[in-house]
């Protein structure tokens, strides 16, 4: 037993980095996250600053990726837009996991009618085509990035709650948990210490595999006009604003569109690689 050496960690990372394609994807994900966090430092201009005389100008020293229809710098809007999109995705993920944990844990641990009720609710939500329900919720609450986040979280928790419940139930049967119960440990402690710690890890990983889909959902609702309002920058909202100029200045569409595509692709690749690394028997 070597001291201070965790055999699991290097294996995961080396697995991820072994395949060149996946390595690139990991790099892109890291880059995107850094850029999102550091947007205020990296952006050359204020994303809302309009310089009408320079509307539609091609890439130049002043505007590295060109300017949009109101003379705003595309690079700055891309960086701040990525911030909005990625942070919202993170928020959706956090909310989804939080709700799923509460629901899944309660249902799995207590069983009985608590389980039946909660799972019925989850089934109900799963019965709706998610995008339509998200559009309906966001549309009803009002066009606002926060409402988009809420809508996607409401629509997204059910699947994870079911999975977590399953994991909790099987975990509960474990001998050490039975022992804790027999010893009279309080339920909170059992749930927190024994069950949650063992299930939360796989849970978070599972959810992370879906970040790509969450990003698509956020950008999609923004594209329909439901999220960030002008002058805010967000990738889907930028697509929405680029539509009237589709033919004359397609770069307004292609810049945010490529960003979304590359980001989602990278997250999906990393997710696939993670899944392969954690579960070598899976044939995906």
């Amino acid at each position, binding site marked *: 037993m070597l001291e201070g050496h965790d055999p699991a960690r290097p294996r995961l990372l080396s697995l991820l980095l072994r395949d060149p394609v996946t390595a690139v994807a990991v790099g892109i994900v890291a880059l995107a996250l850094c850029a999102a966090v550091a947007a205020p430092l990296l952006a050359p201009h204020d994303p809302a600053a309009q310089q009408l005389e320079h509307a539609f100008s091609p890439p130049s020293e002043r505007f590295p990726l060109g300017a949009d229809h109101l003379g705003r710098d595309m690079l700055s809007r891309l960086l701040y837009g990525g911030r909005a999109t990625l942070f919202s995705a993170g928020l959706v993920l956090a909310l989804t996991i939080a709700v799923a944990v509460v629901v899944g844990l309660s249902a799995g641990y207590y069983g009985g009618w608590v389980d039946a009720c909660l799972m019925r609710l989850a089934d109900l939500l799963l019965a709706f*085509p998610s995008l339509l329900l998200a*559009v309906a919720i966001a549309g*009803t609450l009002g066009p606002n990035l926060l409402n988009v986040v809420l809508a996607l979280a409401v629509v997204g928790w059910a699947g994870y709650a079911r999975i977590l419940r399953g994991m909790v139930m099987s975990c509960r049967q474990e001998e050490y948990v039975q022992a804790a119960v027999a010893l009279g440990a309080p339920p909170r402690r059992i749930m927190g210490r024994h069950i949650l710690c063992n299930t939360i890890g796989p849970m978070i990983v599972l959810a992370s595999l879906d970040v790509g889909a969450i990003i698509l959902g956020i950008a999609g609702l923004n594209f329909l006009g439901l999220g960030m309002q002008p002058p805010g920058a967000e990738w889907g909202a930028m*697509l929405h604003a680029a539509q009237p100029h589709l033919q004359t200045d397609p770069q307004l569409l292609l810049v945010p569109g490529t960003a979304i595509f590359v980001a*989602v692709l990278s997250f999906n690749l990393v997710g*696939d690689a993670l899944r392969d690394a954690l579960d070598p028997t*899976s044939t995906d």
Partner: protein
Amino acid sequence: MVTYTARRFVSLVGVMLGISAVSFTLTALAPGDPAYSLLHLQQPGTEPSAEAVGALRAELGLNDPAPVRYLRWLGGAVLGDLGVSYRSGQPVAAEIAARMPATLILAGTSLAVGLGVGMPFGVFAAVRPRSWWDAVSRVLALLGASVPTYLLGLLLILVFAARLKLLPAFGSGTARHLILPTAALAAGITAQIMRLTRASMLETLRQPFVRTASVKGLSATRVTVWHGLRNAALPVVTATGLASGHLLGGAVMVETIFSREGVGKYAVDAIFVRDYPVIQGAVLYTALVFVVANFAVDLLYHWIDPRLRHA
């Protein structure tokens, strides 16, 4: 089989009731006064008086408590009356029925493409692992899952309708109108089905019975294609059920971009003008289609799988 169907049907009814409750709650939570909106629609340009609004509220029973209103709406819905659109004054049920075919055609064609393209690719990829076929299909599957439907739709319009002028950009009515919307919508579905078929085939091919069959002397193709596929088809059937949800959701985007008069676009337009009876009706209807599709898939699955049939 019969008992299973009966049990699933009962549960289906339960889910439908739940859906109707969620649908109703959605619009009950919404801001604005339906009576005011209705009056304003009938006399555009004028401000409805407070008395008129109050009278209409009483007439429509809007002052009753929520559960009463819900039951009233539910009663109407069961009989096929989903209320009247604020915008057009026409019955919602009739408007949805008129738009159903466009959405179903789009979804059906996309599903057909997904199955027709995704399944063969998935099978070949599984049968010839680590070949270029496998690599190509994995790449395509990944791309299909990553590209936003709306972006693909806009790009298709840009290239094929505006620049090359080959295909129509909006509307419905002929097969040509269907090509671009289907291409946009089918990408995601095809990717999903491809991956699932491949995974499922790979798993099946590892099963002992397959090796047994090949030992018995049956030709290789016969073994893989026939025996393997039969068993691999099961998860694909399930996937089709799940995919229909994504199809209906993606149809919303595609119909909006391509201006196809389907239920998806109808719902989105209603959301933007706050036409609540329509939002309620369209969400309910779409969810029902999804649930019924899954129900049918469930039964199909149960019927195909001999293990379950005799359980």
